[in-house]
């Protein structure tokens, strides 16, 4: 029987090693003091700060969402749940501001469903 995989896939370590960088060297590039911080980021024990996420993008030329897909998925799921809740709350609204917010929610939801359909198609 196949076990349910609960692994954390992060590509920071992969890209660091592709370019032959040590943890300490990468920490220095990020402007951090210790290599332990990089280790924790690589193993999913720490959430990267916005500064680190941008630094990764600058160094490797890859979007933070691609380097930390687990984190991106987690944030996306949480935000989508909240957007859906807001969309439901605004279902009976008639004022202009409410309608504008509903339009934004509809756009977010259609983007997400489009992305999912694209992924399933691929």
């Amino acid at each position, binding site marked *: 029987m196949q076990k349910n995989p*609960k692994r954390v*896939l992060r590509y920071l*370590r992969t890209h660091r090693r592709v370019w032959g960088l040590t943890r300490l060297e990468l920490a220095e590039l990020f402007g951090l003091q210790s290599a332990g911080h990089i280790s924790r980021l690589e193993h999913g024990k720490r959430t990267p700060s916005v500064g680190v996420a941008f630094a990764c993008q600058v160094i490797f030329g890859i979007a933070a969402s691609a380097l930390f*897909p687990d984190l991106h998925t987690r944030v996306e799921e949480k935000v989508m749940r909240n957007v859906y809740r807001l969309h439901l709350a605004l279902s009976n609204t008639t004022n202009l501001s409410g309608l504008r917010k509903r339009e934004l929610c509809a756009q977010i939801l259609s983007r997400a469903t489009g992305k999912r359909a694209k992924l399933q198609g691929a």
Partner: protein
Amino acid sequence: MSDASSKLVLALYPFTRGYAFVLFEGPNRPFDWAVKEIKEKHKNIRTLDEIKKLIGRYHPHLIVIEDLTPGRSRRTSRIRKLYRLLARLAEREAVEMYHCPKHHLTEYFGRLSKYELAKIIAIQLPGFAHRIPPLRKAWTAEDPRQALFDAAALGIAFYGLEQPRRES
């Protein structure tokens, strides 16, 4: 890049001083790799422990090792025993195992020396290029880094020959 549901393939190559592994998430897409030297008396026990941790961390879909059919392989009795233990471990952990015969490697890469094989793999996987060991002299022992390329060769041969056969 793929999501966490992608199927990972773990290619393993034990050698005299330890073992090397390359974890692939697709053909020519290594996710993690390392050469681990084990300097203990009971190397097999420690190697198995480390491989168990690897399986626990990544949950690979399949493990690729070389085929040790008698007469086709010249590995030591310790490594043969390690492969037997590894097969049992894979069964316990419910991970499929593929024994890559040597002729698959020659079919895929051609008849090459280990150094030439490392150079070809470094072209396919540019992230490995800076780890090519120097050309081995007749009087020197094999560089541990070579094991990394041997493990990578097993994974690449699996994706190149075996996976299309399974899919068709």
